């Protein structure tokens, strides 16, 4: 009788490699999704930016000619400037939504109804919102009727160069504050109540509690909201396309609209891809900061 114990069979892969493979298996769907819908379009845009592709004929390699044209293109620089104005103007919603968050984090009668009303615009389609506000901004519309009654003024919102960007920023803020309000409420609810109790015992007033407790502890949420605000604003397109098509006189022309116009209206896909690549770089730099 053989009493020797045969050594255990060595597995094909060791346990660490197996864990790694399982990890890869679970993240693979997300990676594939990113590869197809993020990396591929990004690098395709980069490739087309080196060609003069016009959607109808095969792309022809032209090297950096599109980038050279971009530097000299005054409309691109105007669109870039307008995009920054739109993004920084829309950043006001961070303050407004924080204020709303501070109000709605407390419990009071009717809170849920009011919260829902503030959130309702978030779920509306951008095109619908733009079309409704275009009617509101009509020279004979309700906004001007009210302003006329109160102040005797009736501005031309969408056809005055300095007012048109403001008009669109107002819509952007109006539609999105509900969403950021909810984020701030979640952030505020995560702050332990004991901090406020201790501060009260120590004699801190409301402003001191807000400045020394709320704001610092809300920093991660605030940073997240600011980042999302800028990303969304840099991708602004719907309101400008539906309401003004970039006018009056390019006052509301933003990068996304400029890219769309070049790519699909002028069939300059290579030129537009160059703009899109530039915007990707700008957005990436913003996020990393």
């Amino acid at each position: 009788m053989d009493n020797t114990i045969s050594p255990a069979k060595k597995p094909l892969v060791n346990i660490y490699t197996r864990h790694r493979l399982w990890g890869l298996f679970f993240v693979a769907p997300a990676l594939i999704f990113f590869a197809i819908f993020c990396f591929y379009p990004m690098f395709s845009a980069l490739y087309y930016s080196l060609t003069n592709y016009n959607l109808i004929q095969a792309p022809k390699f032209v090297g950096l000619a599109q980038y050279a044209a971009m530097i000299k293109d005054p409309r691109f620089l105007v669109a870039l400037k307008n995009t920054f104005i739109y993004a920084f103007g829309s950043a006001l919603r961070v303050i407004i939504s924080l204020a709303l968050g501070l109000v709605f984090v407390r419990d009071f009668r009717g809170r849920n109804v009011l919260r829902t009303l503030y959130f309702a615009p978030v779920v509306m389609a951008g095109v619908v919102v733009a079309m409704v506000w275009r009617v509101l901004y009509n020279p004979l519309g309700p906004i001007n009727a009210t302003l006329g009654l109160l102040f005797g003024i009736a501005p031309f919102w969408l056809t005055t160069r300095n007012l048109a960007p403001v008009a669109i920023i107002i819509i952007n803020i109006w539609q999105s504050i509900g969403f950021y309000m909810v984020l701030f409420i979640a952030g505020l609810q995560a702050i332990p109540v004991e901090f406020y109790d201790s501060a009260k015992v120590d004699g801190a007033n409301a402003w001191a509690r807000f400045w020394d407790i709320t704001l610092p502890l809300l920093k991660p949420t605030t940073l997240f909201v600011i980042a999302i605000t800028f990303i969304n604003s840099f991708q602004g397109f719907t309101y400008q396309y539906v309401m003004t098509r970039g006018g009056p006189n390019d006052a509301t022309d933003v990068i996304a609209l400029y890219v769309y116009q070049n790519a699909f209206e002028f069939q300059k896909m290579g030129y537009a891809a160059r703009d899109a690549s530039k915007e990707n770089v700008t957005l990436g730099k913003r996020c990393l900061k």
Partner: protein
Amino acid sequence: MSQLAYRKFIVITAVLALASLLLGSCAPAATPTVAPATAAPAQPTVAAAQPTATTAAAQPTATTASAQPTATTAAAQATATTAVSNAPVTITFWSHDYKPRETLDDKFIAAFEAAHLNIKVDYVIGPGNDTDYLTKLTTAYAGNAAPDCFNLRASSAGALLAAKQVLPLDPKVFGYATVDELVKAYVPGTLTGFYYKGQLFAIPTEVNIHAVYVNTALFKAAGLDPVKDAPKTWDDLLTINPKLLKEQNGVLAQRGFDFIYGLPDDASGPINTLAGMAYQLGGTIMNADQTAATVNTEPWIRTFQYVQDWVYKYKFGGPQYTSYYLAFINGSEAMGISGSFLAADLVSQKSPAANTYEVIQMPRWKDATNNTGALLYGYGLFTNATSSPDKQQACQMLIKELSSHPEDYLKDAALLQPTIALSQTATFKNTPYLNVFLQDMVGTPWMPVHPKYSQIIDSLTRALQRVTTEQEPVKQALDTANAEITAILQGQ
């Protein structure tokens, strides 16, 4: 995450990114290929190869609807035919949104399918706005999903024509031996806009020109006679217009006449009218060989100055107000510029002006060199050159069917398909105001066909916006537009 795992993650991500780059570089977007034409049509002798802003090559002899060439011309059709394939085929046909025409299209497509049991037509309605429609069409071409045949504005087809993505018409499908004979079935000059480099590419679904619709009820309410006081010159308009204005809180609640300013709601672009005004004074958009713009000449300066004064000096209207088209339909504008299709829209949208309007010619400059209105434009039925030969043939047969009912399209959709046979029908003679449109078509050039038409028109529209929203000096705005358009024409 350990450093080793982090490094491996970066490596995997980089590999995926590199694979994407390789995919993107080595597999460029599907681009349409040119399928061989099924027939080489004869060269036309009637029209110029490329329409420019000069008079149409063949002047129509008719000045009124009734004075048309005799029926013998229309009847002299060749019996030439082309062999028809009986293989089952499904074709996709696109057209833009216009309800009155769609109803007729549905009816005739059903009849066509009943007569050709092997052919199935998939009818798709696209956006009504020309720019959006062209965007959708070119994107479809890029994705190898372009329709087999489509309705498209002639001046928008330049890029497709230059890239040989559209098939020349086969006259034999229409029962004619040559293109010349096919052309003779139409009022002279009305097919000019569908030519490119000497070949005919489309049959019109409509040929149009802008005239002025007058709301007679608003005229009478203002104490004006809609016939005697209707403006004949641009100076007349300055006199009549103040009587038609109504203000509310310092804003115009009712306008007399107003221009098209290129607003998102506009049914047409502004350049048809403005180019027409400039052409009355001898101005054109570009030179004859399309190598340089000519929009900073005196005719254009006068035209743009008139519009700028309209907005700022006289305060008769402007881009801040509701689009002229919607305003006329809802009864808040006494005069509106439009093609013949507005008549059908007034009825379908139950406008208060539906039964109280008349149509008059576009006003003229007192010292006009050319007695014309706005520039001619039209929509035509094109065939995709990248479709299979069977589908191309089926498409041209469908085009023949859809172009064989001009009386119905005129009666129910207010669209003019300018055949000589139509001109002899009672419907034609009894259609109110058709003679106004036809009179202005005589001697009027077409909007130019150019591969970069969209950019050219965009440049002029932006010049108009600078002039009417920021009061930029007209000469400066037009000099800028001229430089931009010249750069576009020279391929920069």
